[in-house]
C-alpha cells in the first residue's frame, strides 16, 4: 500500500520532508510488516503444522511402517525391516485381499449407479413443490441422521435369516427357501449395498435439492419459452447449471465408497464376502492381532487407490480455477 504512495509522491514535495518520510515510512512498514508477518506466520503456520503433523507425517510413517514387521509392542528398536514382503504377501497369499479390492470397486460403482441417480431423481421431484414435500424430504433424509448402531440393528432385523422381516415376507408370498442374506458370500455384499444406498440416497438428495433451489428460475422460463419439455429442460439447462453441486456429489460419493467400513464391520467384521480394504486394515492393526506392518501395507494400497481420485479431483478443480 505504501509503495504506490512513494512512486506517486508529488515531485514538488520538499526534499526535507521526503527525507523525513523514509524513516517514518520505514517504521510503519516495519511495524505493519512485523504484524503481518506474525499473523501470516500464524495463519499459515498453524494449519501447516496441523496438516504436516496430523496428515503428512503419519502418512509417511504409515508408508515406512508398511515395509516392516512389527507387533506394536515396545519401542522402535523392536521394528524389523522386511522390505516389500508385506506387499508380496498381500497380493499372493492373503485370501481376503482380492475380494476386498473388488468389493471396494463394486461399492464405488454401485453408489454412483443407484443411490446418486436415485437421490437426484428424488431431489427433482421434491423441487416441484409436491404436496407433503417436507414430509417426503424428512423420510428420505432420516437414514442419514440415524446412528450407525441403529442402522446396523435395523438391517439386522430385516435381513436375519431365521427371524428377519424380509424372509418372513418372502415365506408369505412364495415357497422359496429362506435366503441367507448376511451369510451367503455371493449376495451379502449386495444386501449391504442396499443398506448403504439407503443412507447415501438421502444425503445426495439433500445436496441436489439445495443446488436446484439455487438455479435461476429464469433459466427454466427461457427453456420453456423455447419449447423444451421438462426432461429436456433438466438435461440441457438445469443439470449443466449444477456443475458445482455435481463436483461435490462426486467427491462425497468417492469418499463414502472409500471409507465404507461401518456397516460391514457391524455385520461380520468385514469377512466372508464383505471384505473391504478398510476392514482388513482395521482387523490387522487394531486389536490383538497387531500386525502393524502388514496392516500399514494394506493402508498404503488404499491410499494409492484414493490418490487416483484425489488427483482427478484436484486437476478438475485447478482447471476450473484457471478458466
Amino acid at each position, binding site marked *: 500500500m505504501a509503495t504506490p504512495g512513494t512512486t506517486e509522491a508529488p515531485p514538488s514535495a520538499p526534499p526535507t520532508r521526503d527525507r523525513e518520510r523514509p524513516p517514518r515510512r520505514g517504521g510503519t512498514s516495519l511495524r505493519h510488516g512485523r504484524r503481518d508477518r506474525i499473523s501470516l506466520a500464524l495463519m499459515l503456520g498453524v494449519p501447516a503444522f496441523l496438516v504436516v503433523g*496430523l*496428515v503428512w*507425517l*503419519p*502418512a*509417511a510413517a*504409515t508408508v*515406512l*511402517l508398511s515395509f*516392516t*514387521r512389527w*507387533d*506394536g*509392542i*515396545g*519401542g*522402535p528398536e523392536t*521394528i524389523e*525391516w522386511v*522390505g516389500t*514382503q508385506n506387499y508380496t504377501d498381500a497380493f499372493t*497369499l*492373503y*485370501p*481376503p485381499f482380492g475380494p476386498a479390492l473388488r468389493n471396494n470397486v463394486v461399492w464405488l460403482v454401485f453408489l454412483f449407479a443407484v443411490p446418486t441417480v436415485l437421490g437426484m431423481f428424488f431431489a427433482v421431484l421434491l423441487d416441484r413443490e409436491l404436496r407433503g414435500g417436507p414430509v417426503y424430504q424428512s423420510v428420505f433424509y432420516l437414514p442419514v441422521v440415524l446412528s*450407525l448402531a441403529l442402522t446396523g440393528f435395523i438391517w439386522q432385523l430385516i435381513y*436375519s*435369516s*431365521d*427371524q428377519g422381516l424380509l424372509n418372513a415376507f418372502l415365506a408369505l408370498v412364495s415357497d422359496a427357501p429362506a435366503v*441367507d442374506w*448376511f*451369510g*451367503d*458370500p455371493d449376495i*451379502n455384499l449386495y444386501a449391504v449395498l442396499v443398506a448403504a444406498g439407503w443412507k447415501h440416497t438421502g444425503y445426495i438428495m439433500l445436496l441436489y435439492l439445495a443446488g436446484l433451489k439455487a438455479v435461476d428460475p429464469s433459466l427454466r422460463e427461457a427453456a420453456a419459452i423455447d419449447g423444451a419439455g421438462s426432461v429436456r429442460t433438466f438435461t440441457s439447462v438445469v443439470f449443466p447449471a449444477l456443475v458445482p453441486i455435481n463436483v461435490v456429489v462426486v467427491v462425497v460419493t468417492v469418499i463414502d465408497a*472409500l*471409507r465404507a*467400513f*461401518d456397516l460391514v464391520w457391524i455385520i*461380520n*467384521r468385514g*469377512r*466372508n464376502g464383505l471384505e473391504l480394504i*478398510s476392514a482388513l486394515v*482395521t*482387523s*490387522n*492393526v*487394531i*486389536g*490383538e*492381532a*497387531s*500386525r*502393524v506392518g502388514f*496392516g500399514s501395507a494394506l*493402508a*498404503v494400497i*488404499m491410499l494409492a487407490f484414493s490418490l487416483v481420485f484425489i488427483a482427478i479431483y484436484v486437476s478438475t478443480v485447478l482447471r476450473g480455477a484457471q478458466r
Partner: protein
Amino acid sequence: MHPRPPAPPGLRRRSLLRGLAGAGTLAALPALGGCSSSDPNTVTLTSNRANAAQRAAMQDIVGLFEAESGRTVEINTFDSTSFQESVNNYLQGTPDDVIAWFAGYRTRFFAERGLISDVSAVWEGLDGAFTDQVRDLCSAPDGKQYMVPDSTAPWAVFHRRSLFEENGYEAPATRAEFVELCERMRRDGLEPIASGVREGWPAMGMFDHLNLRLNGPGFHLELLDGQHSWDSPEVRAVFGAWAELLPHHQADPLGRGINEAQTALVRREAGMMLCGMFLTHVFPEGEDLDDLDCFPFPEFDAEIGADAVEAPIDGFMASGTLRNPEGAHALLAHFGTREAEEVYTAVDPQALPLRLDADTSGFSPLEAKVNDMVVNAGALTQYMDRDSRPDFASIVMIPALQRFLSRPDDIADLTASIQRQKLSIFGQ
C-alpha cells in the same frame, strides 16, 4: 537397511488413524487410560467382565477384600470385546495394577514382552490349591507365574434334558452314535446341531474339538503353536470329519449370529449345540436353566479317547509397572482364595471355580457334571484364539474356517492356503 525409527511413538496412533477411514474403534482407546492414583491404600482393577451377573460378582468379591484389608479398590469395567481389541495398547500405557485376563498363550505372550509382572510370590500362598495343569497355564516359559486363576467356563455339547427324554435320545459316546443321533433328530424334524458363526470365532470350537478327538491334545496344542504343518493329513482329516457332520448343522451358519443359534436351542428347534458354559446366560433362570444338560464331545478315536476338555481359564494379572505392589499382590492373593472363588462363581452362572478345595455342594447338576469333566480331564485346552497367536487365529483362521463352511469340498486347497499364511505369520 533402514534402522531409523520411522516416527516418534506418539504418532503411531495417529498414523493408524490416517490409514483408516472409519477407525471409530480407536475412540475407545483413550478412555481406557484409567485414572492414576498412588495412594497406598488404593488398588486399581481393570475388569473385562461386563455382563450384569459378572459385574455383580466382581463387586461382591472386591467388597470382601475391602472389608478384610481396609484397602479401597477402584474397578474400571470395559466391554470384553473392545478391551480385547485394545489390550496391547492399554498395557503399554498406564494400566491399572490388577487386570482381568485369560490364561495360556495370552498370558505367556504378555509375560515374554515384559508387559505384566511376576506373581510367583502370590502363588507361594496358593501351593496345592490348583492342579499342576492350571499352574502351567498361568506360567511363562521362565517357570514363573504371571496370573492368578479364578474360574473357567468349559465347553461341552449342550441340550435340553426334557427334549432328550421325550424322544428317547441318549447322550452319544462315540462318533457312530453321534452321527446316528443326528440322523434320528433330522427324522424327528429337529436341527441336530445349532450353529451360528457370523462373528467368525464360534467356528473355532468345532475345529478344536474334532482335532482334539482325532489327533489328541498334544498335537492340537503344537499345531496351534506353529510346530506342525497345516497342510497335513491330520488337519485334512479334521476338515473331512467336519464335512461329514456339516449336513447335520443348522443350514447357512455364516449368516447366523451365535445368539440366534443359542435361541434355536432354547426354543427346541435344535437338538444340541457345541458351546461354552456362557450359553447359560441365554437360558432363562428357573425351569429352562434347570432343563439344560450336556455331555462331553464324543470320542472319535478309541486310542485318543474323549477326556480332553476345552476349558478357557480366566484370572487376574499384575501390570508391568505396579503403583501399589503390596496392595496389588494382596488383591491377587484374595482372588485366589477359596472364599472369593466360591462367591464369584455362585453369582456368575457361566463360571466354575478352579480351586481343588472349592465347595461343590451348591452346584446344580449341570455344574457338577461339567466340573467333573474338568477335574477328570486328561488335558485342558483354552480355545483356538487363546492357544495360538492372536494374529494367526483371527486373521488367518477365521476367514479360512468361514471359507470351509461355505465351500466344504476343496479341503486340500484350503489347508495349503492356511499353511502358506501360517509360514508368513509365524515367520519360519
